[in-house]
């Protein structure tokens, strides 16, 4: 299939998923209710459900999924490792640990978010310090990231063990990933950030393709490899920090989406990166619909849904690629 056709299909899929996300929910507003609300012919309650509850949540889900998939694609290219995702380098664990500390001390949403962002940036700084030897060495970066991730993980376990009951439930839900956290006024943030990040990553596309053929080959073609790696890592780190702050840890979207798109036949990053934005956004949008409709009116944490969907999907991909 032609790459442009795949991209068009993905856009259509995103639109369908968005309609689904607006029409499905525990409040009894269905397709008819949704359309009349969108056309402004519905009562105030319906409009409130659509515009103040479902739309912000859908925007949030799409934006976070898109960001995660984009960060995953960047990191997989940067590390030349198909198992890389936004969580493997410990950036999100750093954000998680500091956010939990803030919650433990009873900090409000804004302060918790700031602490999380600080944690992600601190983690990235430590990564640069450990992995920089006149340039970022992928193997050092990966090792440092895995160890950093383990260390933050230990701290998170410790915090959960020591936390009093009152903040504990919120902390656990935060860790599992929760798209309901964002208030409706700021729901535009994630999708806007996704398209801004795409615009920033897009100029790197051909250089990332060259990097796939090896560091020296890329350098010989005129790619400034050191600068490329630093830029890609920085962008992926900022993206991860933002998503963790908005929605907590949501796994598997960042890992699986780039692989799905490659298997669909998108090889070059100038096609892969935009496709990841739409596909990752759609995946998380659908996961969110499932998370709020399966046991409605209760909600499953969306991080659990993506992991439950993503783990078998990834194992399937892995067995398929092993056969070829």
């Amino acid at each position, binding site marked *: 299939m032609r790459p442009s056709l795949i991209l068009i299909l993905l856009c259509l899929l995103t639109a369908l998923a968005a309609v689904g996300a607006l029409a499905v929910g525990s409040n009894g507003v269905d397709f008819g209710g949704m359309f009349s609300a969108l056309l402004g012919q519905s009562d105030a309650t319906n409009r409130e459900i659509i515009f103040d509850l479902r739309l912000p949540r859908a925007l949030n889900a799409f934006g976070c999924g898109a960001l995660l998939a984009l960060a995953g694609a960047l990191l997989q290219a940067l590390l*030349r490792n198909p198992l890389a995702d936004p969580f493997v380098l410990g950036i999100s664990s750093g954000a998680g640990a500091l956010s939990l500390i803030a919650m433990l001390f009873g900090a409000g949403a804004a302060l918790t978010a700031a602490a999380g962002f600080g944690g992600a940036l601190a983690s990235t700084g430590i990564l640069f310090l450990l992995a920089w030897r006149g340039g970022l060495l992928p193997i050092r970066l990966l090792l440092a990231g895995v160890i950093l991730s383990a260390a933050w993980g230990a701290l998170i376990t410790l915090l959960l063990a020591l936390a009093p009951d009152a903040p504990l439930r919120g902390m656990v839900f935060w860790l599992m990933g929760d798209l309901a956290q964002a208030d409706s006024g700021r729901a535009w943030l994630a999708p806007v950030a996704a398209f801004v990040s795409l615009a920033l990553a*897009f*100029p*790197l*596309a*051909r*250089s990332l*393709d*060259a990097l*796939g*053929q*090896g*560091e*020296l*080959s890329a*350098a*010989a*073609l*005129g*790619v*400034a490899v050191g600068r490329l790696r630093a830029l890609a890592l920085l962008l992926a780190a900022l993206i991860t920090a933002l998503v963790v702050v908005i929605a907590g840890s949501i796994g598997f979207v960042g890992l699986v989406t780039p692989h799905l798109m*490659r*298997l669909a*036949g998108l*090889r*070059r990053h100038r096609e892969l990166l935009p496709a990841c934005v739409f596909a990752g956004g759609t995946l998380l949008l659908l996961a969110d619909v499932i998370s709020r409709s399966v046991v409605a009116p209760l909600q499953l944490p969306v991080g659990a849904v993506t992991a439950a969907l993503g783990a078998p999907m990834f194992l399937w991909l892995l067995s398929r690629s092993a056969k070829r």
Partner: protein
Amino acid sequence: MLSAPTRKVEVILRTSNLGVEVGGKTICQDFNLNIERGSRWAILGINGAGKTTLISTLAGIRAPETGSITLNDRPLGEFAPRERAMRIGLMVQDDHDEAETTVLDIALLGRLPYLEWWQMESAADEAIAIDALNAVGLKGMEVRRAATLSGGERRRLAIAALITQQAPLLMLDEPNSHLDLHQQIALLDLLCSLPDRTLVMSLHDVNLAARYCTHALLLFAGEGEGDGMGKGGACAGPIAEMLDPGVLSKLYRHPVTAHDTAAGRVFLPT
């Protein structure tokens, strides 16, 4: 007495007092080298003598420890990376990924130095890449996954990418390693038939160097000091002067003898 006609030789790459070290080991020091347009250089030396490091340095993707390198009389370090890549092509030893990349994708990467990030590869770029694939005998293989190519095909694909890059100075790190006899000859025939190219390649086969190259650069891995060579032991010159049984015996730390045959002079290890 007639004055000899002065043939203008153009030096494309020049090193002055070049010093290259890696891991505390000196590969060459105070090394002066003039690579003339159209010449074909073989870099010879034992494993670990620093052939790869020297090639990377001459290709400008690694800075020398001391001394300077000029490309067309301009310091190599002053070239922007892509500007340099339009003039020097480098084929490194195998390092390929297992992704879905196709043969044409890889050949087209040779156009990277010429394209701004917002530009798509044009029909002209694609034609250059396809011509290059045809030249190396990979005609009709454009959409094949590169991971499914044989070792010889993979090497020819790398040459196609190098041709697509259209740089006048080509550097190749062991272009014929792991290839069968026929593939080695075919590859070197192909490289030497490229028009208007200057070649610098590291080789392990002295007889292939003698057959295909005009000049040789010997890296003695520290063994040649005090014999009128720079410290670290590098020397360079026309191939006929450099390939001498005594010198080669020292180079490879193994006795080498020369035998004159109907096919020319061959060197054999004893």
